[in-house]
C-alpha cells in the first residue's frame, strides 16, 4: 500500500515482480540496478540459494525525483517463483501498488505461466485486491533465446495470459536488458496514475 505523506509531499509505492520460477524476475532487477544506478536509492538486497534461486525476495529501492511537486520513491520487490514458497509470495505481495508479471517465453513453460497468473489472481484476492484493477503489465521474457529452442509466439502468450486482462505487454530479454526499462516505466506510470486517482495528490 502506498505511503503518502501530505505534509512532506512524499509518496512511496511498491511494485512487485511476479511470475513462475526462473522466468527472469531477479534478472530484471539486476539489470535495473546496473543500468539505473543514479535512481537507485540503496543497495539491492537479494536473498537466494546456492543455485541462484530467490529464496525469500529481492528488494531494490529507487527514487524517481519530483513528480507534480511530490517526491516519489518506488520499492521494487521480486517474489520467489517456486511453488513451495507460496506463503512467502503472499507476504511479499501484500501492499503492492503495481505488478510486473514476468512470463517465460519457452514453450515448455507455458503451463507454468498460466498457473502462476492464477496464483497471482488468488493471492491478490486474499489481499483484498483485484487483478483487473491493480496496475499490471505483462513482460514476455527470454525472447532472445528463440532459434535454439522452441519459444511461444507473442500471439500465443497473449491468448494464454492477456485475453481477459488486456493490459500493456512487453517482449523482453532481461539478460540483454531489452524491454526491461520499458516494462518498469509503464508499470510505474500506471501505478502513479492509479495513486493520483486514489489520493488526488497532484491537487
Amino acid at each position, binding site marked *: 500500500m502506498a505511503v503518502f505523506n501530505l505534509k512532506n509531499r512524499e509518496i512511496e509505492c511498491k511494485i512487485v515482480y511476479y511470475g513462475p520460477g526462473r522466468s527472469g524476475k531477479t534478472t530484471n532487477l539486476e539489470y535495473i540496478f546496473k543500468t539505473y544506478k543514479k535512481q537507485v536509492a540503496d543497495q539491492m538486497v537479494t536473498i537466494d540459494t546456492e543455485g541462484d534461486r530467490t529464496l525469500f525476495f529481492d528488494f531494490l529501492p529507487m527514487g524517481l525525483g519530483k513528480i507534480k511537486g511530490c517526491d516519489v520513491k518506488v520499492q521494487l520487490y521480486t517474489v520467489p517463483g517456486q511453488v513451495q514458497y507460496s506463503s512467502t509470495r503472499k507476504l511479499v505481495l*501484500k501492499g503492492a501498488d503495481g505488478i510486473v508479471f514476468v512470463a517465460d517465453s519457452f514453450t515448455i513453460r507455458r503451463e507454468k505461466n498460466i498457473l502462476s497468473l492464477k496464483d497471482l489472481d488468488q493471492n491478490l484476492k*486474499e*489481499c*483484498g485486491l483485484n487483478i483487473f484493477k491493480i496496475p499490471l503489465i505483462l513482460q514476455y521474457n527470454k525472447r532472445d533465446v528463440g532459434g535454439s529452442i522452441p519459444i511461444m509466439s507473442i500471439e500465443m502468450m497473449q491468448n494464454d495470459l492477456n485475453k481477459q486482462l488486456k493490459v500493456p505487454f512487453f517482449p523482453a530479454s532481461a539478460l540483454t536488458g531489452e524491454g526491461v526499462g520499458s516494462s518498469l516505466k509503464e508499470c510505474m506510470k500506471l501505478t502513479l496514475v492509479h495513486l493520483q486517482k486514489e489520493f488526488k495528490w497532484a491537487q
Partner: protein
Amino acid sequence: MGIKEEIKSVLREAEIYRTQGLFNEAMVKFKHASELIEKNVKPESGKQLVDGITKKIELLKQTIAKYNDPAKPPEMPVEIQNLIKAKFSFSTDKESAALEGAIALTKFGQYERAIKEFKDLLKMESFRLVAAKNIIRCYLASSLTEGAVSQYKEWMTLDIFTLGQLEKIRFFLENLLKEKGIKSELPAVKEEKAVLKEDVAAKKVPEKAKPAIKPLIEMPETAKEEEEFLDVSSVGIILQMEGKKLPEIILDVSFQSGNVVSLLVPIREKFLIANMKAGVKLNDVQFYSPIAILNGSGVVSSFSRIGSGPKMGSYSLDLKMFTN
C-alpha cells in the same frame, strides 16, 4: 531432419534448460535423447553417449531433490532481518508494527530472531498472549519441542502472566504437541506454579510427585476453535440500503489479535462511516485468509477517526469476527 540432427537438437535443448535452472524440463529432454539413441544408434557407438546422459540425469535428480528439500530456511544476517521487520509491517501504530514485524520474521523462517522480538513484546499487556503463543510456535517450527515446553515451565515461575493466560498457553501448547503426535504432560497451572518456583530456587526435584491437580480454569472442548484463529488479511463488508445489497467494501486488516481485527476505513467510504459505531452488528461479512474465504458476521468493538499521521481523516474500525 535426420536422426543424428534430431538427437543433437534435443541434447542442445536439454542443456539450455539445465543452464537456465529448469531442471525438470532438462531431465525430460535428456531422457528423450537417451530413448532416441537407444532406438536408433548401434549399441557399440551409442552406449557411451547414453551413459553420459544417465550421469547428467542423476546429477539433475540430486539437484532437484536439494531444492525441494523442505529444510528450515537459514537464519539471515541481522541487516536482512531488520529489512524484513521494517518492510513487512504495515501498521502505523509503533507497537502493532513491532508485532507485525515479528510475525513477518516467523513467516520468513527467522525463528531465533522472531523469538527475541516476541520476548520484547511480552512486556506489553495487549500483546502478551499473542507474543507468548508465537514464541511457542517458533520453538516448535524449529523442531525445538523441549524448548517450547521449557519456556512454558519457565513462564510458570515468573510473574508475567495471569493464571488464566498461563492456562491458555498450556492448552495451546498441548494442542500443538498433540497435532505433532507428541505426548507431553504439561504441568497444570495453579499449585504446580508454586512447586516449580521452589524447584527452580532450590534446584532439586521434589521427593514425592504430587497428584495432578485440576486446572483453575476448565477449558471447554471448543476452546481450541476459540484459540486458533486464521490469519485474516482483509475483510469484505456488504451493507444494505433500503433492502438492497450494496457493493462489497474490501478493507485491509492492519492488525489482528485473536478474533478481533483492526481495519482501516478510507474517508471515501462515506456510507460505511456514517453507519458505524461501537456495538453495531454487521451480518454479511467475508473474511479473506491465506487458506480460505470465510463467510460470517462481525460486531464493531470500536470505531474512531484517525486524527494525525499519514492516514489522518481515515477511520480505524475494530471488528470482532464470527464465522459461519
